[in-house]
């Protein structure tokens, strides 16, 4: 599903990540941890081809990411739901419209009942007509999660999805991601939150990737 082959990436010549070789299988559940600035967001950006590796190869859905067209990138992104660390929206459209945006972009019909259910699922029913700027940090993250999953993508990537929410809401968001994983989706979550990882481990088979010394290591079973 996601395959890295001796990948390196660096901003402006200095390597941030090197010698990364790994393979994330369909239906797997991964956590990505590491100190701030280690390169978690950078790694995830490589996973949805916002960035191209400076060395090595990446295959997404069996397709090499080098030298593909912009339209092919768009197709890849439709199969990958992303909750960005800084959740970006179209600020002049309502929350509901932003959540429905991937459908419009892909030319898919909108099922209002579906959207209503999804918004209830992330607890944003009351905020459908609000503008993104009017949301709290946690509400933005929930809206971003709803937008990430509305297309029922094969891979869900979440960059610090619980960064701005209380523990109860964290558990709820985690529950959503676990449910998605049980539906067969591949899930990758970047987080600092060890409690969250422990909580997940009690429910599903997860693997933890840790970025240290510019490399990604598979962390031990016990944390």
């Amino acid at each position, binding site marked *: 599903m996601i395959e890295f082959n001796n990948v390196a990436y660096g901003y402006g010549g200095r390597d941030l990540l090197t010698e990364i070789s790994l393979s994330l299988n369909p239906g797997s559940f991964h956590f990505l941890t590491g100190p701030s600035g280690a390169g978690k967001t950078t790694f995830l950006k490589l996973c949805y081809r916002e960035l191209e590796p400076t060395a090595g190869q990446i295959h997404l859905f069996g397709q090499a990411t080098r030298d593909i067209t912009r339209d092919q990138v*768009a197709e890849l992104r439709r199969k990958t739901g992303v909750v960005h660390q800084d959740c970006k929206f179209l600020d002049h459209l309502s929350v509901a419209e932003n959540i429905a945006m991937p459908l419009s972009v892909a030319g898919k019909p909108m099922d209002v009942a579906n959207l209503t259910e999804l918004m209830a699922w992330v607890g944003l029913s009351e905020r459908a007509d609000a503008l993104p700027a009017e949301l709290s940090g946690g509400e933005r993250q929930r809206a971003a999660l709803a937008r990430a999953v509305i297309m029922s993508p094969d891979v869900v990537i979440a960059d610090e999805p619980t960064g701005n929410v209380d523990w109860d809401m964290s558990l709820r968001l985690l529950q959503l991601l676990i449910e998605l994983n049980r539906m067969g989706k591949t899930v990758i979550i970047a987080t600092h939150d060890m409690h969250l990882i422990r909580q997940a481990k009690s429910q599903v088979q997860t693997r933890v990737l840790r970025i240290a010394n510019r490399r990604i290591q598979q962390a031990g079973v016990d944390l």
Partner: protein
Amino acid sequence: MALSLPFLKTDTTIHDRIVPPSGFTARLTILTAGAMAFLAVFALTLSLATGRLAERWGGELARSSTVRISAPSDQVAAQTQAALDVLATTPGVQSARALDSEEERALLEPWFGPSLPIDTLPLPVLIEVIETSDGYDAEGLRLRLAGEAPGAVLDDHTRWRKPLVVAANRLRFLGVICLILITGVTAAMITLAANAALAANGQVIRVLRLVGAKDSYIASAFIRQFTLRGLSGALIGTVMGLISVALLPNTQASGGFLTGLGFQGFEWLWPFVIPPFAAAVSFFATRFAANRTLKRLM
């Protein structure tokens, strides 16, 4: 569940609104498109009117001249025949014939009334000369006529007609140049406005791409917006221009010599080409700008 989704009837309404509204740029684009369409109406009027003028002065009607025979009455017939013989052998003369007295009466009637006793007046004989499209050599003809029929005088219209035809054709050419320039300026203006809109909406484009938007989806939203602006501006400008042209004083009444400046007959349909043409120009200009910008914002 109390969930009201006023803008979510279909997904196309989202597509229509992904470019944030910008009242100022929109109004400015519409205004400029309107001004250009207004000018285009006048350039079109100029082209069509001068075209008519050139046609009238260069046409069959204007390719006639006259030879007037003023001679003592016993020589008139002989000199007329001599002049006709000369004309018959002049290259560039298609036909020549003497007007009979009925035709002369018709010519004079506007000035002297229908009861003119034409037979008792010492009127000159008029020979109508129709030239071929190449025309004849007026100086040579004049010399030969002077030799054969001393009472013959050639009234040659080409001397004043030709420069007028040239001037009219130049004016028409300038009108066409104006139309081309107006098209170019409109295209440039729309390209600049679309470029500005694309640059100002870099964030929107980035977000759309992150959720899987292809270039065509992003570009068509901008293209739609600017095509509509170009179309509506041009519609307003064309209508204003047409009203102005319709209000021009009618020169037709003051004599058919100068053609009217406005549109005549089917020509009134021409200005209606302007709005769809402006829309097409806006469409291609925005597509050009969008494709360029989207390629650059990789």
